[in-house]
Protein backbone atom coordinates (compact mmCIF):
# COMPACT_ATOMS: atom_id res chain seq x y z
CA UNK A 1 0.00 0.00 0.00
CA UNK A 2 2.03 2.92 -1.21
CA UNK A 3 1.15 6.20 -2.83
CA UNK A 4 1.00 5.08 -6.43
CA UNK A 5 3.19 2.87 -8.56
CA UNK A 6 6.07 5.27 -9.00
CA UNK A 7 8.93 5.14 -6.54
CA UNK A 8 8.94 8.36 -4.57
CA UNK A 9 12.42 9.08 -3.34
CA UNK A 10 13.32 12.11 -1.31
CA UNK A 11 16.62 13.72 -2.21
CA UNK A 12 18.23 16.37 -0.05
CA UNK A 13 21.11 17.92 -1.94
CA UNK A 14 23.66 20.26 -0.33
CA UNK A 15 20.99 21.97 1.67
CA UNK A 16 21.92 24.91 3.85
CA UNK A 17 19.99 27.35 5.99
CA UNK A 18 21.11 30.77 7.11
CA UNK A 19 19.00 33.40 8.76
CA UNK A 20 19.42 36.75 10.48
CA UNK A 21 19.13 36.62 14.24
CA UNK A 22 17.97 40.05 15.52
CA UNK A 23 19.15 39.30 19.05
CA UNK A 24 22.63 38.26 17.97
CA UNK A 25 22.63 41.00 15.39
CA UNK A 26 24.28 38.64 12.92
CA UNK A 27 23.65 35.82 10.50
CA UNK A 28 23.29 32.36 11.98
CA UNK A 29 23.86 29.20 9.98
CA UNK A 30 21.69 26.42 11.32
CA UNK A 31 22.45 24.00 8.51
CA UNK A 32 25.77 24.13 6.67
CA UNK A 33 25.68 21.37 4.11
CA UNK A 34 23.46 18.33 4.28
CA UNK A 35 22.99 15.76 1.58
CA UNK A 36 20.76 12.80 2.16
CA UNK A 37 18.80 10.35 0.12
CA UNK A 38 15.73 8.60 1.49
CA UNK A 39 14.20 5.79 -0.50
CA UNK A 40 10.55 4.95 -0.56
CA UNK A 41 9.43 2.91 2.43
CA UNK A 42 12.56 3.59 4.44
CA UNK A 43 12.43 4.48 8.10
CA UNK A 44 15.29 6.79 8.89
CA UNK A 45 16.03 8.49 12.16
CA UNK A 46 17.93 11.74 12.56
CA UNK A 47 19.73 12.24 15.87
CA UNK A 48 21.95 14.90 17.21
CA UNK A 49 22.58 17.23 20.12
CA UNK A 50 20.52 20.40 20.55
CA UNK A 51 21.31 22.98 17.94
CA UNK A 52 22.64 20.48 15.41
CA UNK A 53 20.06 21.58 12.88
CA UNK A 54 17.79 18.54 12.85
CA UNK A 55 14.57 20.45 13.53
CA UNK A 56 15.55 23.14 11.02
CA UNK A 57 16.12 20.43 8.43
CA UNK A 58 12.75 18.89 9.13
CA UNK A 59 11.04 22.27 8.87
CA UNK A 60 12.69 22.80 5.49
CA UNK A 61 11.57 19.41 4.21
CA UNK A 62 8.09 20.13 5.51
CA UNK A 63 8.11 23.46 3.72
CA UNK A 64 7.70 25.59 6.83
CA UNK A 65 11.04 27.28 6.30
CA UNK A 66 12.56 28.39 2.99
CA UNK A 67 15.83 26.80 1.92
CA UNK A 68 18.87 29.08 1.75
CA UNK A 69 20.93 26.88 -0.53
CA UNK A 70 20.82 23.51 -2.22
CA UNK A 71 17.63 21.65 -3.03
CA UNK A 72 15.08 19.24 -1.67
CA UNK A 73 13.29 17.19 -4.26
CA UNK A 74 10.80 14.36 -4.34
CA UNK A 75 11.43 12.42 -7.55
CA UNK A 76 13.32 15.39 -8.97
CA UNK A 77 10.42 17.74 -8.30
CA UNK A 78 11.39 20.53 -5.94
CA UNK A 79 9.14 20.90 -2.93
CA UNK A 80 7.12 24.08 -2.68
CA UNK A 81 5.92 25.06 0.74
CA UNK A 82 3.92 22.80 3.04
CA UNK A 83 1.60 20.20 1.57
CA UNK A 84 -0.18 16.90 2.19
CA UNK A 85 2.56 15.03 0.36
CA UNK A 86 4.76 15.64 3.39
CA UNK A 87 2.76 14.80 6.49
CA UNK A 88 3.97 16.14 9.83
CA UNK A 89 3.60 14.84 13.37
CA UNK A 90 4.34 17.44 16.02
CA UNK A 91 5.85 17.18 19.46
CA UNK A 92 2.96 19.26 20.76
CA UNK A 93 0.42 17.00 18.98
CA UNK A 94 -1.16 20.09 17.38
CA UNK A 95 -4.64 18.56 17.27
CA UNK A 96 -7.38 21.12 16.66
CA UNK A 97 -9.05 21.41 20.08
CA UNK A 98 -12.43 22.51 18.75
CA UNK A 99 -12.77 19.59 16.38
CA UNK A 100 -13.53 16.03 17.39
CA UNK A 101 -10.94 13.33 16.93
CA UNK A 102 -12.77 12.11 13.84
CA UNK A 103 -12.92 15.63 12.40
CA UNK A 104 -9.21 16.03 13.06
CA UNK A 105 -8.28 12.87 11.23
CA UNK A 106 -10.70 13.66 8.42
CA UNK A 107 -9.26 17.17 8.03
CA UNK A 108 -6.81 16.27 5.28
CA UNK A 109 -9.38 14.44 3.14
CA UNK A 110 -11.76 17.37 3.65
CA UNK A 111 -9.12 19.80 2.39
CA UNK A 112 -8.88 17.65 -0.71
CA UNK A 113 -12.57 18.26 -1.28
CA UNK A 114 -13.97 14.88 -0.40
CA UNK A 115 -17.56 14.77 0.86
CA UNK A 116 -18.14 14.73 4.60
CA UNK A 117 -19.34 11.11 4.71
CA UNK A 118 -16.26 9.85 2.94
CA UNK A 119 -14.00 11.86 5.22
CA UNK A 120 -15.65 10.35 8.27
CA UNK A 121 -15.17 6.88 6.83
CA UNK A 122 -11.52 7.46 6.08
CA UNK A 123 -11.09 8.83 9.59
CA UNK A 124 -12.58 5.72 11.16
CA UNK A 125 -10.46 3.51 8.96
CA UNK A 126 -7.24 5.16 10.04
CA UNK A 127 -8.29 5.44 13.67
CA UNK A 128 -8.79 1.69 13.76
CA UNK A 129 -5.09 1.30 12.89
CA UNK A 130 -4.36 2.47 16.42
CA UNK A 131 -7.47 1.08 18.03
CA UNK A 132 -9.06 4.47 18.60
CA UNK A 133 -12.16 4.26 16.48
CA UNK A 134 -14.31 4.39 19.61
CA UNK A 135 -13.13 7.91 20.52
CA UNK A 136 -13.93 9.45 17.16
CA UNK A 137 -16.63 11.65 18.73
CA UNK A 138 -14.47 12.85 21.60
CA UNK A 139 -12.49 16.07 21.78
CA UNK A 140 -8.69 16.04 22.01
CA UNK A 141 -8.57 17.47 25.51
CA UNK A 142 -10.54 14.46 26.71
CA UNK A 143 -7.76 12.11 25.65
CA UNK A 144 -4.48 11.21 27.28
CA UNK A 145 -1.20 12.39 25.77
CA UNK A 146 -0.45 9.01 24.25
CA UNK A 147 -3.87 8.79 22.64
CA UNK A 148 -3.59 12.31 21.29
CA UNK A 149 -0.32 11.56 19.58
CA UNK A 150 -1.73 8.36 18.07
CA UNK A 151 -4.43 10.56 16.58
CA UNK A 152 -1.73 12.92 15.38
CA UNK A 153 0.07 10.12 13.58
CA UNK A 154 -2.98 8.73 11.81
CA UNK A 155 -4.15 12.25 10.96
CA UNK A 156 -0.99 12.69 8.94
CA UNK A 157 -1.18 9.17 7.51
CA UNK A 158 -4.74 9.66 6.32
CA UNK A 159 -3.40 11.76 3.46
CA UNK A 160 -1.12 9.00 2.15
CA UNK A 161 1.87 11.29 2.24
CA UNK A 162 5.00 10.59 0.24
CA UNK A 163 6.97 11.02 3.41
CA UNK A 164 5.98 11.25 7.08
CA UNK A 165 7.99 13.77 9.08
CA UNK A 166 8.02 13.26 12.82
CA UNK A 167 9.52 15.96 15.01
CA UNK A 168 10.42 14.44 18.39
CA UNK A 169 6.83 13.20 18.52
CA UNK A 170 7.12 11.15 21.70
CA UNK A 171 9.10 13.64 23.76
CA UNK A 172 5.98 14.95 25.49
CA UNK A 173 4.71 11.64 26.84
CA UNK A 174 5.83 9.59 29.80
CA UNK A 175 8.44 6.85 29.41
CA UNK A 176 6.05 3.87 29.49
CA UNK A 177 3.69 5.38 26.95
CA UNK A 178 6.67 6.27 24.83
CA UNK A 179 7.79 2.67 24.55
CA UNK A 180 4.29 1.54 23.66
CA UNK A 181 3.99 4.23 21.00
CA UNK A 182 7.36 3.31 19.54
CA UNK A 183 6.32 -0.31 19.20
CA UNK A 184 3.00 0.68 17.68
CA UNK A 185 4.74 2.95 15.21
CA UNK A 186 6.99 0.16 13.94
CA UNK A 187 3.94 -2.08 13.60
CA UNK A 188 2.07 0.48 11.52
CA UNK A 189 5.18 1.06 9.47
CA UNK A 190 5.57 -2.65 8.77
CA UNK A 191 1.93 -2.88 7.66
CA UNK A 192 1.76 0.20 5.47
CA UNK A 193 5.38 1.01 4.68
CA UNK A 194 5.26 4.81 4.61
CA UNK A 195 8.54 6.64 4.25
CA UNK A 196 9.37 8.05 7.66
CA UNK A 197 11.89 10.64 8.79
CA UNK A 198 11.97 10.61 12.58
CA UNK A 199 13.78 13.36 14.51
CA UNK A 200 14.88 12.64 18.05
CA UNK A 201 17.57 13.33 20.57
CA UNK A 202 17.02 9.94 22.21
CA UNK A 203 19.69 7.60 20.85
CA UNK A 204 18.04 4.36 21.97
CA UNK A 205 14.78 5.46 20.39
CA UNK A 206 16.49 6.16 17.09
CA UNK A 207 18.18 2.76 16.98
CA UNK A 208 14.99 0.97 18.04
CA UNK A 209 12.88 2.49 15.31
CA UNK A 210 14.97 3.00 12.22
CA UNK A 211 16.57 1.24 9.26
CA UNK A 212 19.16 3.97 9.15
CA UNK A 213 20.36 6.41 11.76
CA UNK A 214 21.75 9.72 10.56
CA UNK A 215 23.82 11.62 13.09
CA UNK A 216 23.89 15.37 12.64
CA UNK A 217 26.26 17.81 14.20
CA UNK A 218 26.59 21.56 13.81
CA UNK A 219 24.56 21.55 10.62
CA UNK A 220 26.37 18.69 8.91
CA UNK A 221 25.96 14.95 8.53
CA UNK A 222 28.41 13.16 10.76
CA UNK A 223 27.43 9.59 10.14
CA UNK A 224 24.88 7.55 8.20
CA UNK A 225 24.58 4.21 9.92
CA UNK A 226 22.44 1.30 8.75
CA UNK A 227 20.66 -0.60 11.51
CA UNK A 228 20.65 -4.35 10.91
CA UNK A 229 18.16 -5.42 13.51
CA UNK A 230 15.41 -7.96 12.92
CA UNK A 231 11.83 -6.81 12.80
CA UNK A 232 9.37 -6.87 14.49
CA UNK A 233 11.25 -5.01 17.23
CA UNK A 234 9.99 -5.34 20.77
CA UNK A 235 11.52 -3.60 23.76
CA UNK A 236 11.47 -6.63 26.00
CA UNK A 237 13.74 -8.47 23.59
CA UNK A 238 15.93 -5.67 22.39
CA UNK A 239 16.74 -4.11 25.69
CA UNK A 240 19.13 -6.98 26.44
CA UNK A 241 20.15 -7.64 22.83
CA UNK A 242 23.90 -7.27 22.25
CA UNK A 243 23.63 -5.92 18.72
CA UNK A 244 21.16 -3.31 19.87
CA UNK A 245 23.38 -2.28 22.73
CA UNK A 246 26.44 -2.11 20.48
CA UNK A 247 24.67 -0.03 17.89
CA UNK A 248 23.28 2.30 20.54
CA UNK A 249 26.74 2.84 21.97
CA UNK A 250 28.14 3.53 18.55
CA UNK A 251 25.54 6.15 17.85
CA UNK A 252 25.85 7.64 21.30
CA UNK A 253 29.59 7.99 20.94
CA UNK A 254 29.20 9.64 17.59
CA UNK A 255 26.64 12.08 19.00
CA UNK A 256 28.76 12.89 22.02
CA UNK A 257 31.92 13.31 20.03
CA UNK A 258 30.28 16.03 17.99
Amino acid at each position, binding site marked *: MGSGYAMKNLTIQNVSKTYFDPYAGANVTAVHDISLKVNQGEFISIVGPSGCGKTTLLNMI*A*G*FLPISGGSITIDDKAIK*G*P*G*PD*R*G*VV*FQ*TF*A*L*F*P*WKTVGENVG*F*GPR*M*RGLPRKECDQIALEFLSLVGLEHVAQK*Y*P*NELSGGMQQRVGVV*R*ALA*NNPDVLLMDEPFASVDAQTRMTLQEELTKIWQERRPTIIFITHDVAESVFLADRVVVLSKGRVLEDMPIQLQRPRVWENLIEDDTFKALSSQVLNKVRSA
Partner: protein
Amino acid sequence: MIILLKVWSLYLRLAAKFPIVQTILPFIPLVIAWALVTEFQVFPRAFLPGPMDVVNAFGTLTYKGVLTQYLEDSVVRLAVGAAVGVAIGIPLGLLIGLSDRVRQAVWPVLLFFQAIGDIAWLPILLVWFGFSLTTMTLIIVYTVLFPIVLNTSLGVRSVSIDLHRAALSLGASKLRVVWEVVLPGALPNIMTGLRNGLGYGWRALIATEIIVGTSGIGFMMFDARRAGSVVEILLGMVVLGTLWYVVDSWVLAPIERATGKRWGLVTQ
Protein backbone atom coordinates in the same frame (compact mmCIF):
# COMPACT_ATOMS: atom_id res chain seq x y z
CA MET B 1 -25.03 30.08 66.82
CA ILE B 2 -26.40 26.73 65.73
CA ILE B 3 -29.43 28.42 64.27
CA LEU B 4 -27.20 30.73 62.27
CA LEU B 5 -25.30 27.78 60.88
CA LYS B 6 -28.51 25.98 60.02
CA VAL B 7 -29.78 29.00 58.18
CA TRP B 8 -26.47 29.31 56.41
CA SER B 9 -26.44 25.68 55.29
CA LEU B 10 -30.00 26.04 54.07
CA TYR B 11 -28.91 29.05 52.07
CA LEU B 12 -25.98 27.13 50.59
CA ARG B 13 -28.16 24.25 49.55
CA LEU B 14 -30.70 26.54 47.98
CA ALA B 15 -27.97 28.44 46.22
CA ALA B 16 -26.48 25.26 44.82
CA LYS B 17 -29.83 24.24 43.42
CA PHE B 18 -30.88 27.66 42.23
CA PRO B 19 -27.87 29.86 41.49
CA ILE B 20 -30.19 32.78 41.16
CA VAL B 21 -30.55 32.77 44.91
CA GLN B 22 -26.91 33.58 45.39
CA THR B 23 -27.20 36.49 43.03
CA ILE B 24 -30.31 38.04 44.48
CA LEU B 25 -29.77 37.48 48.17
CA PRO B 26 -27.03 40.10 48.74
CA PHE B 27 -29.29 42.78 47.36
CA ILE B 28 -31.96 42.15 49.94
CA PRO B 29 -30.06 43.70 52.87
CA LEU B 30 -29.10 46.58 50.61
CA VAL B 31 -32.69 47.29 49.68
CA ILE B 32 -33.74 46.96 53.30
CA ALA B 33 -31.03 49.39 54.37
CA TRP B 34 -32.10 51.76 51.65
CA ALA B 35 -35.71 51.57 52.78
CA LEU B 36 -34.70 52.22 56.37
CA VAL B 37 -32.54 55.19 55.45
CA THR B 38 -35.39 56.81 53.59
CA GLU B 39 -37.89 55.93 56.32
CA PHE B 40 -35.86 57.76 58.87
CA GLN B 41 -35.42 60.67 56.51
CA VAL B 42 -31.65 60.60 56.89
CA PHE B 43 -31.58 62.56 53.66
CA PRO B 44 -34.38 64.79 52.46
CA ARG B 45 -37.01 62.90 50.50
CA ALA B 46 -36.22 65.00 47.48
CA PHE B 47 -32.67 63.73 47.49
CA LEU B 48 -33.23 60.07 48.13
CA PRO B 49 -36.59 58.48 47.52
CA GLY B 50 -37.30 55.05 48.89
CA PRO B 51 -37.46 51.73 47.10
CA MET B 52 -41.24 51.74 47.01
CA ASP B 53 -41.24 55.08 45.21
CA VAL B 54 -38.95 53.62 42.61
CA VAL B 55 -41.13 50.58 42.20
CA ASN B 56 -44.17 52.78 41.77
CA ALA B 57 -42.41 54.85 39.15
CA PHE B 58 -41.44 51.66 37.41
CA GLY B 59 -45.04 50.58 37.37
CA THR B 60 -46.34 53.90 36.11
CA LEU B 61 -43.80 54.33 33.40
CA THR B 62 -44.12 50.79 32.18
CA TYR B 63 -47.85 51.13 32.14
CA LYS B 64 -47.60 54.30 30.13
CA GLY B 65 -45.26 52.52 27.79
CA VAL B 66 -42.62 55.17 28.33
CA LEU B 67 -40.11 52.97 30.04
CA THR B 68 -40.41 50.18 27.55
CA GLN B 69 -40.03 52.61 24.69
CA TYR B 70 -36.92 54.17 26.19
CA LEU B 71 -35.49 50.77 26.93
CA GLU B 72 -36.14 49.62 23.42
CA ASP B 73 -34.50 52.74 22.01
CA SER B 74 -31.40 52.28 24.13
CA VAL B 75 -31.05 48.60 23.43
CA VAL B 76 -31.57 48.99 19.70
CA ARG B 77 -28.91 51.70 19.52
CA LEU B 78 -26.47 49.50 21.38
CA ALA B 79 -27.25 46.54 19.15
CA VAL B 80 -26.75 48.51 15.95
CA GLY B 81 -23.55 50.13 17.19
CA ALA B 82 -22.24 46.81 18.43
CA ALA B 83 -23.08 45.04 15.18
CA VAL B 84 -21.18 47.60 13.13
CA GLY B 85 -18.32 47.56 15.63
CA VAL B 86 -18.08 43.79 15.41
CA ALA B 87 -18.30 43.80 11.62
CA ILE B 88 -15.34 46.16 11.44
CA GLY B 89 -13.49 45.00 14.50
CA ILE B 90 -13.14 41.29 13.92
CA PRO B 91 -11.66 41.51 10.41
CA LEU B 92 -9.38 44.32 11.55
CA GLY B 93 -8.29 42.30 14.56
CA LEU B 94 -7.67 39.31 12.31
CA LEU B 95 -5.50 41.38 10.02
CA ILE B 96 -3.50 42.86 12.85
CA GLY B 97 -3.04 39.47 14.47
CA LEU B 98 -1.96 37.74 11.30
CA SER B 99 0.41 40.29 9.85
CA ASP B 100 3.32 41.67 11.83
CA ARG B 101 3.69 44.52 9.40
CA VAL B 102 0.12 45.64 9.70
CA ARG B 103 0.44 45.39 13.44
CA GLN B 104 3.52 47.57 13.65
CA ALA B 105 1.96 50.14 11.39
CA VAL B 106 -1.42 50.27 13.07
CA TRP B 107 -0.79 49.55 16.74
CA PRO B 108 0.48 52.96 17.88
CA VAL B 109 -2.35 54.67 16.04
CA LEU B 110 -4.85 52.34 17.69
CA LEU B 111 -3.45 52.99 21.13
CA PHE B 112 -3.50 56.72 20.67
CA PHE B 113 -7.08 56.79 19.49
CA GLN B 114 -8.11 54.48 22.27
CA ALA B 115 -6.53 56.93 24.69
CA ILE B 116 -8.62 59.77 23.35
CA GLY B 117 -11.67 57.82 24.38
CA ASP B 118 -15.13 57.70 22.98
CA ILE B 119 -16.76 60.67 24.68
CA ALA B 120 -14.06 63.07 23.56
CA TRP B 121 -15.26 62.47 20.02
CA LEU B 122 -18.72 63.72 20.85
CA PRO B 123 -18.11 67.42 20.20
CA ILE B 124 -16.64 66.96 16.78
CA LEU B 125 -19.27 64.41 15.82
CA LEU B 126 -21.88 66.94 16.90
CA VAL B 127 -20.29 69.48 14.57
CA TRP B 128 -20.42 67.03 11.71
CA PHE B 129 -23.70 65.24 12.26
CA GLY B 130 -25.58 67.32 14.77
CA PHE B 131 -27.77 65.88 17.50
CA SER B 132 -28.66 62.80 15.57
CA LEU B 133 -28.80 59.06 15.70
CA THR B 134 -25.70 58.90 13.53
CA THR B 135 -23.67 60.67 16.19
CA MET B 136 -24.80 58.28 18.88
CA THR B 137 -24.25 55.18 16.79
CA LEU B 138 -20.78 56.29 15.78
CA ILE B 139 -19.78 56.80 19.40
CA ILE B 140 -20.91 53.30 20.24
CA VAL B 141 -19.13 51.83 17.24
CA TYR B 142 -15.96 53.62 18.28
CA THR B 143 -16.25 52.39 21.85
CA VAL B 144 -17.01 48.80 20.94
CA LEU B 145 -14.30 48.67 18.31
CA PHE B 146 -11.25 48.79 20.53
CA PRO B 147 -11.88 45.89 22.90
CA ILE B 148 -12.92 43.77 19.94
CA VAL B 149 -9.90 44.61 17.80
CA LEU B 150 -7.45 44.23 20.68
CA ASN B 151 -8.88 40.97 21.94
CA THR B 152 -9.30 39.48 18.47
CA SER B 153 -5.70 40.24 17.57
CA LEU B 154 -4.59 38.79 20.90
CA GLY B 155 -6.59 35.66 20.21
CA VAL B 156 -5.18 35.31 16.73
CA ARG B 157 -1.65 35.61 18.00
CA SER B 158 -2.30 33.07 20.71
CA VAL B 159 -3.04 30.33 18.21
CA SER B 160 0.08 28.20 18.33
CA ILE B 161 2.19 28.07 15.22
CA ASP B 162 2.07 24.30 15.28
CA LEU B 163 -1.67 24.47 14.60
CA HIS B 164 -1.04 26.70 11.59
CA ARG B 165 1.63 24.32 10.36
CA ALA B 166 -0.46 21.23 10.99
CA ALA B 167 -3.28 22.62 8.88
CA LEU B 168 -0.91 23.64 6.09
CA SER B 169 0.74 20.24 5.99
CA LEU B 170 -2.69 18.63 5.84
CA GLY B 171 -3.38 20.47 2.62
CA ALA B 172 -5.17 23.61 3.74
CA SER B 173 -4.63 26.79 1.76
CA LYS B 174 -3.66 29.93 3.66
CA LEU B 175 -7.21 31.22 3.47
CA ARG B 176 -8.62 28.00 4.79
CA VAL B 177 -6.15 28.07 7.63
CA VAL B 178 -7.66 31.41 8.70
CA TRP B 179 -11.17 30.04 8.51
CA GLU B 180 -10.54 26.57 9.96
CA VAL B 181 -7.82 27.27 12.49
CA VAL B 182 -7.25 30.92 13.30
CA LEU B 183 -10.85 32.04 13.75
CA PRO B 184 -11.95 29.09 15.89
CA GLY B 185 -8.70 29.33 17.83
CA ALA B 186 -9.24 32.99 18.54
CA LEU B 187 -12.90 32.53 19.41
CA PRO B 188 -12.55 32.54 23.21
CA ASN B 189 -10.67 35.83 23.04
CA ILE B 190 -13.16 37.22 20.55
CA MET B 191 -15.94 36.42 23.00
CA THR B 192 -14.06 38.23 25.75
CA GLY B 193 -13.64 41.20 23.45
CA LEU B 194 -17.33 41.14 22.63
CA ARG B 195 -18.28 41.02 26.25
CA ASN B 196 -15.97 43.87 27.22
CA GLY B 197 -16.99 45.84 24.17
CA LEU B 198 -20.66 45.55 25.02
CA GLY B 199 -19.92 46.67 28.56
CA TYR B 200 -18.09 49.77 27.43
CA GLY B 201 -20.67 50.36 24.74
CA TRP B 202 -23.47 50.28 27.27
CA ARG B 203 -21.74 52.91 29.37
CA ALA B 204 -20.95 55.06 26.37
CA LEU B 205 -24.55 54.84 25.26
CA ILE B 206 -25.77 56.18 28.58
CA ALA B 207 -23.29 59.03 28.50
CA THR B 208 -24.26 59.93 24.96
CA GLU B 209 -27.94 59.82 25.76
CA ILE B 210 -27.40 62.09 28.71
CA ILE B 211 -25.59 64.65 26.62
CA VAL B 212 -27.23 64.29 23.25
CA GLY B 213 -30.29 62.15 23.39
CA THR B 214 -33.92 62.63 22.75
CA SER B 215 -34.93 59.28 24.13
CA GLY B 216 -33.47 56.34 25.92
CA ILE B 217 -32.72 55.53 29.52
CA GLY B 218 -29.83 57.95 29.81
CA PHE B 219 -31.97 60.73 28.50
CA MET B 220 -34.71 59.80 30.92
CA MET B 221 -32.30 60.16 33.79
CA PHE B 222 -31.02 63.52 32.69
CA ASP B 223 -34.43 64.85 31.88
CA ALA B 224 -35.60 63.79 35.30
CA ARG B 225 -32.64 65.63 36.78
CA ARG B 226 -33.68 68.79 35.02
CA ALA B 227 -37.19 68.39 36.31
CA GLY B 228 -35.84 67.64 39.76
CA SER B 229 -37.52 64.27 39.82
CA VAL B 230 -35.08 61.99 41.57
CA VAL B 231 -37.24 58.92 41.42
CA GLU B 232 -36.76 58.49 37.74
CA ILE B 233 -33.03 58.93 38.04
CA LEU B 234 -32.86 56.11 40.52
CA LEU B 235 -35.22 54.04 38.44
CA GLY B 236 -32.98 54.53 35.45
CA MET B 237 -29.93 53.46 37.40
CA VAL B 238 -31.66 50.38 38.73
CA VAL B 239 -32.89 49.41 35.28
CA LEU B 240 -29.48 50.01 33.73
CA GLY B 241 -27.64 48.02 36.31
CA THR B 242 -30.09 45.16 36.38
CA LEU B 243 -30.32 44.87 32.63
CA TRP B 244 -26.59 44.79 32.16
CA TYR B 245 -26.08 42.45 35.07
CA VAL B 246 -28.60 40.02 33.69
CA VAL B 247 -27.23 40.08 30.18
CA ASP B 248 -23.63 39.89 31.28
CA SER B 249 -23.92 37.22 33.94
CA TRP B 250 -26.49 34.98 32.36
CA VAL B 251 -25.81 35.34 28.67
CA LEU B 252 -22.36 36.71 27.93
CA ALA B 253 -20.31 35.19 30.73
CA PRO B 254 -21.60 31.64 30.22
CA ILE B 255 -20.93 31.89 26.48
CA GLU B 256 -17.44 33.10 27.18
CA ARG B 257 -16.90 30.30 29.67
CA ALA B 258 -18.32 27.68 27.33
CA THR B 259 -16.06 28.60 24.43
CA GLY B 260 -13.07 28.65 26.74
CA LYS B 261 -13.93 25.28 28.16
CA ARG B 262 -14.54 23.66 24.83
CA TRP B 263 -11.19 24.75 23.63
CA GLY B 264 -9.64 23.07 26.62
CA LEU B 265 -8.53 26.33 28.13
CA VAL B 266 -9.08 27.12 31.74
CA THR B 267 -10.91 30.37 32.32
CA GLN B 268 -11.74 31.63 35.75
